């Protein structure tokens, strides 16, 4: 059963992405695209002629996708939270290297921003993992899910996590990585056709990745977890509609001052 979930993880993420577009449209009183729009886009991409700049650049996108998927596998299998975060880091670094490997201004700025985003959210994710460890005595997801009551003992860590979700799913106010008016797609710009499709699907997986952390706060009760995910999903989109993009440097300052403080206070409180 679990393997079915793993195999369909990109589709699940695609549905989340499609659902989000519908949700945001409704918040803005628009009709919005159909739920399955991401999949229509995928089929359209398959028909396009593929142009590449050079082969390492194209292959890194493929590697990025599969390693991201592998980290999702690790989540579903209930492995060590630290491994999962670092597998994700690995996948992200490959994408950044790909962005740097072409002589394109937009790709370079995009990769720079991806790198800064990475160092903004990664410490927070690790601190959340440390919080789970202190509460449950293990970094293994399967054991973290055996216990409950995380939300009451680490509310500030949850708040910090909620602050970094917009970075990961590229939503305002932290959507610097996408910022299509400024950087024409960032790292994604030099991809087309099938290789762009891999990047497009990676985005679906990112949804699963980051919302799994939210789900963990539910602990043993998957109901609480589901409600938390739904609530956070709604809140993130609400904030997305209500705020403007901040500068990359300001994003770093906000995360490192506020979110980091929240984590430290919470962990110090647990001790």
């Amino acid at each position, binding site marked *: 059963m679990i393997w079915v979930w793993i195999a369909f993880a990109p589709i699940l993420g695609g549905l989340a992405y499609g659902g989000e577009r519908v949700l945001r449209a409704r918040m803005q009183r628009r009709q919005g695209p159909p739920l399955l729009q991401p999949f229509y886009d995928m089929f359209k991409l398959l028909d396009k002629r593929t142009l590449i700049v050079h082969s390492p650049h194209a292959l890194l996108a493929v590697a990025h996708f599969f390693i991201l998927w592998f980290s999702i596998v690790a989540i579903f299998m209930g492995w060590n939270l630290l491994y999962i975060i670092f597998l994700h880091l690995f996948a992200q670094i490959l994408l950044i290297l790909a962005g740097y490997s072409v002589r394109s201004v937009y790709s370079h700025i995009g990769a720079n921003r991806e790198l800064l985003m990475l160092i903004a959210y990664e410490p927070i994710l*690790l601190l959340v993992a440390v919080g789970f460890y202190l509460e449950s005595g293990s970094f293994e997801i399967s054991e973290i899910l055996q216990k409950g009551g995380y939300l009451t003992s680490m509310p500030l860590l949850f708040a910090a996590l909620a602050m970094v979700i917009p970075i990961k799913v590229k939503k305002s106010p932290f959507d610097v990585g996408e910022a299509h008016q400024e950087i024409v797609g960032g790292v994604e710009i030099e991809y087309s056709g099938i290789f762009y499709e891999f990047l497009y699907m990676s985005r679906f997986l990112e949804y699963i990745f980051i919302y799994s952390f939210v789900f963990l706060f539910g602990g043993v009760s998957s109901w609480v977890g589901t409600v938390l995910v739904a609530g956070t999903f709604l809140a993130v989109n609400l904030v997305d509609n209500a705020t403007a993009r901040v500068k990359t440097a300001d994003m770093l300052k906000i995360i490192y001052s506020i979110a980091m403080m929240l984590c430290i206070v919470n962990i110090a409180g647990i001790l």
Partner: protein
Amino acid sequence: MEMVLTLFLLPVVASLFLVLSPNVRVQYVLSGAVLALLSITAFSLYNSPNILTFHFPQTLNTFVVAADIVLLLFFLYQGKKYDSPKVIILAIVQLVLFLYIEHASPGHSAQVVIDGLTKFTMEYSPSSTNSAEIVVDELSKFMFLIINIVGGIIVLYSVRYMEDEPVSPLKKQLFIGALLVFLSVMNLIVCANSLMLFFFLFEMTTLASYVLIAFRNDETSRANALKALWMNQIGGVVILLGALIAIKGFETVMLDTLMQRSGGWVLLSIALLAMAALVKGASIPFEGWLLGAMVAPTPVSAMLHSATMVKIAPYLILRLAPVIGSTAVGGMISIIGSLVFVAASYLALSRSVFKEILGYSTVALLGLMMALAAIGTKESIMLAMALMLFHALSKALLFLSAGVLERVHHAKNIEEMKGMVSRSPKTVGFIIFGFMSLTLPPFGLFMGKMFAIASVASLLHERPLLLIVVLSLIVGSALLVLLYFKVASALLASSSDVLPSQATPLPLGFGIPLWLLAFLTVGMAGGYIMMQQKMSVMVLALPLIFVILLPVIVRSMNGYDRSQPYHCGEKESFDSALVYYKPSHYMQQAMYWSFGILFISVAIFGALS
């Protein structure tokens, strides 16, 4: 026994031969043979279980005392010659302290030596003959492994490197010879049990730093060499103070005897030694000397200032770990080390000279190793050792690659390295590999950092102050990722692969040492994963295998059409924009002062507890 002597003597003998042979081929063969012999010896020694001890004959002890006085007088002379009051004052302080200790130490009579080195009336009281001057234990054997394998590879590399150096052939040979002699000194220092012998060897490494930094003999080299000299002399002074307390309070200069004592000033004595480690490890505020050392020829930077000599710092903390582990002194060292890890990673972001960036990241990682070692649990000690090994391999690889870029492409600054991948794909490949081996799974250094997070987190409930270490580990690692891949952004950026390649081939003399280091990095990481005896760790290796295999699986990308990068209709030329982050002057000053206060507080904590 013979094996240890091989490690001590073979480099010296080889260096004599090397200095006498102007033929480059002979030099290659010699250094290759030395590398092979030393590695095999170190490796088989590592696999032998027993602890070896040596007593020094009296004449040898006298020789050490005499050599030490000569060395200190040489420092004094250098200080006078180049008009550096700091060097002069510190040399005088050291001389006074040294003579006083020799005078006070049981049985030693250093006066004799001053009287003209004629009458050797050395007597030894039983207390100093209890334990041996040289003790080769597990830790020493581990250090042998790092020193001889990595050091040997660097010597091999330096043969090719020196070919292009614009100096006389004799000076080139002396340079390589000096590196070899330095290997002997390093092999000795990691098993020196007598504090006075340790002090002598510590000063020898300071001398090596001084002479080799000043090798190019221009104004900056000289100034930086003097800076390295006086800063390291502070390390010498604190060792002497530690030894003085040991002699006065416990009538011993043997480290193992001292560490078994309790009460009195024993912790202060140990704390002073730990402070010497902070100086040698170029922890802030002493990082200036290591940064300045980057003007030296690259093999020097690789050997002394990254792979081997500065490893004395974590080594010394590891040696002292059983005593300081659960004390306030250990706590202070952990905190300083972990704060240095973050601060140095941050400061590195403001630099643009490639070797300086590597230097700062070395300072950072040495801080982390010291922090872990000072925690003193069995697990954290193992982690500090693993970090030391993998750091030596990765940093040697990076420094040697930096040397290739400097030699073949005349690029020292990362601003000059933009798009280097099309000119020197292999070297850039090694650099990117080096960066990945420092930050990503499944490489050893990454694994060490990850296990360290888990290990320190497990201690948090008992020792909440270690939260600082966890935080620094997490933030510092993120900053290092930013640092390395920022540099990568300059190196990469290649045009569409339909254009003809402009690559210059990598000379074999550079290629072989680099490949050796890369293989060792992979092999040792594999071994380290196997050692964990946890199947789940192995999954971390899968992504790398996938990335390596991907080009093989896909085979040919010729089926896809090529295009040029999109410029959105703009015509300006491409320039990879590097970002720099610099703390304000005020903040930097505040940082130096607070690190200075923390440094002194180590001694205060040692005195109070």
